[in-house]
């Protein structure tokens, strides 16, 4: 009986769903406004960017080789600034958005080159670009936000399609489904897992591990580009420091979602669930008028608790 329960909990997705239910119950006790349709809508808006960077981070960590991307926040800032510049040059916002996404991919590819091709440790490579991109964003704008976007552009982050926020319908859900399809149904997805589980074995079975990892860093950059566009539309300005601290949130979400930090284990559904948990806590605390700072502490405790629990399960499983 107990063993069965432990086995059930050690399935990460089930564990996260239970945690989600617990969090929902706690939050609706704390705040009576929690179960409100309008509140759910606002919540998804908060979660949009977190989903994107969380997915990018998950992919990179899954790819193994101690993969991690500390530069996501800076990539968001820098590509956001570039978006502001494009618009300032008189380019249509939607064209500029596409160019920004492409530029994000370019920034990610630079990480891919230094890490996947030149064998730099990921922590170092992305630490370097984290510094470099963030500083470039500040240098280009002199620290002043760029604005002057047309009213229509705010539709992306503040408008609704079919009763749901635009960015969720048009960006987050398609991106998630595409990535999930890639991970679960294509050879490339299997390659990512294999590269994460056993790099050498993957190499011997003919998988170009370097190329796979390069593509993962580029994808993370592309997702950062999307995030930059969403942020720009949300604030109707390109702030050069908008992505600060995003990398830590992304790692937290990925790890909470059950992505093994050593690569190869975990799935994207877990990441989505953990984003849901994190955003619920955030907005629940906000509604209950508890300072948002405590989110950080709650997040820290959940992170530590869930990983410790996970390790305990792994240990028990070995014994069973």
């Amino acid at each position, binding site marked *: 009986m107990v063993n069965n329960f432990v086995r059930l909990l050690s399935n990460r997705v089930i564990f996260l769903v239970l945690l989600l239910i617990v969090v929902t119950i706690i939050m609706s006790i704390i705040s009576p406004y929690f179960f409100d349709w309008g509140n759910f809508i606002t919540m998804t808006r908060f979660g949009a960017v977190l989903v994107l960077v969380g997915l990018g981070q998950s992919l990179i960590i899954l790819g193994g080789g*101690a993969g*991690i991307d500390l530069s996501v926040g800076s990539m968001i800032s820098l590509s956001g600034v570039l978006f502001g510049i494009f618009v300032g040059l008189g380019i249509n916002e939607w064209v500029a958005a596409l160019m920004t996404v492409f530029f994000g991919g370019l920034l990610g590819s630079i990480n891919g080159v*230094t890490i996947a091709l*030149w*064998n*730099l*440790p990921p*922590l*170092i*490579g992305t*630490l*370097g*670009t*984290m*510094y*470099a*991109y*963030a*500083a*470039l964003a*500040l*240098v280009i704008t*002199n*620290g002043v936000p760029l604005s002057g976007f047309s009213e229509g552009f705010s539709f992306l982050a503040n408008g609704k399609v079919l009763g749901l926020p635009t960015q969720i319908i048009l960006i987050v859900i398609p991106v998630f489904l595409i990535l999930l399809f890639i991970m679960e149904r294509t050879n490339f997805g299997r390659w990512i897992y294999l590269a994460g589980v056993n790099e050498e074995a993957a190499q011997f079975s003919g998988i170009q591990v370097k190329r796979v990892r390069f593509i993962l860093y580029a994808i993370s950059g592309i997702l950062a580009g999307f995030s930059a566009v969403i942020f720009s539309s949300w604030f109707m300005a390109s702030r050069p420091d908008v992505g600060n601290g995003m990398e*830590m949130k992304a*790692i*937290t979400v990925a*790890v909470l979602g059950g992505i093994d*930090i*050593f690569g190869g284990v975990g799935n994207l559904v877990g990441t989505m669930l953990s984003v849901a948990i994190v955003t619920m806590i955030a907005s629940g605390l906000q509604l209950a008028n508890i*300072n948002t*700072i*405590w*989110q*950080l*502490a709650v*997040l*820290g*405790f959940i*992170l*530590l608790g869930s*990983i*410790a629990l996970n*390790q305990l399960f792994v240990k028990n499983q070995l014994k069973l």
Partner: protein
Amino acid sequence: MKKKNGLRKYIPKPDRREVFTIILLITEIIIFSIVSPYFLSFNNLETVLRNSTDLAVVSIGMTMVMVLGGIDISIGSSLGVVAILVGWMLQAAIHPILVVFVAIISGVLIGTLNGLLVTKARIPAIIATLGTSNILRAMIFGMLGGRWLTGLPRVFGLFTKGHILGIPIPVFLLTIFYFSFWLFLTYTPVGRHIYAVGNSAEATKLSGVNTDRTMILAFALLGSLVGFSALIYVGRLASVEITVGIDLPMAAIAASVIGGTSVKGGKGSVIGTLAGVLFIAIMKNGIVLLGIPSLWERAVVGLLIIVSVLVDLVVGIRLEKKQREQLSKQRMQVSKYFVVERN
């Protein structure tokens, strides 16, 4: 000649990597002193040193933990928490010696907690310290309550601004700290265990070392250094703001890495780290002296991290290739010899 004992065999010679960083540092100093006449002035050098004392002290601990194969990204937040405690005690006019004591003890407690999470709960160091970092950051906000601590009495200003015989105290401070930790890491069994764990935790465990205790000790020592740095920080700035220490973990990692510490563990030394800290500090100073907007600072540091590690990688591959070539040449000669013999 003295007989070599068992331990001494494992004492490393200065690494190629350390030498590389020191050469970089010297080149940098020469370039800046040519470009700006003000650079080599006593005042300027003292400012550089003063502003990087806390980073230098923390980086020792970071190097130690990274050599173990770990990492600690909570040091910024824990420095903040300790700094606030110190600020409160100074406002309450508690005796400075007691303040020093409490600061170091609370640093050790936080470090030990991290160590326990990593060893006993078996959470990977980067995640464990990310978690504690979040919690401690929230504590900082809670403790400060939205207001800064300002106008604190400059009891510990001495650490950075004082002089003994005309030599700034940071010089003594850093010499003592770096020398004693160099001795600790190079000549004591526990110090060697730290390297051994970083190279292969399993092999070390099998050879009878309590690896968990070594790890907890390293994290606790890092904590004590963070506690001491909090004193320096409060003494230098006489205030604690909400963003206290937010850049510190990354800066300490950068300094260690530029100084040759491997992220994979097992490699690195405090001497390299000192060179790394000074290299970054002087670079920042030089950027200001050259009249480049200080916004560029971080971009340059970021590039330097990548370039220094990259150059090291390339040199390492070259050297390895050369060694391999030499080895195969020797083998060729040996086999030729055998062939001749047989004929």
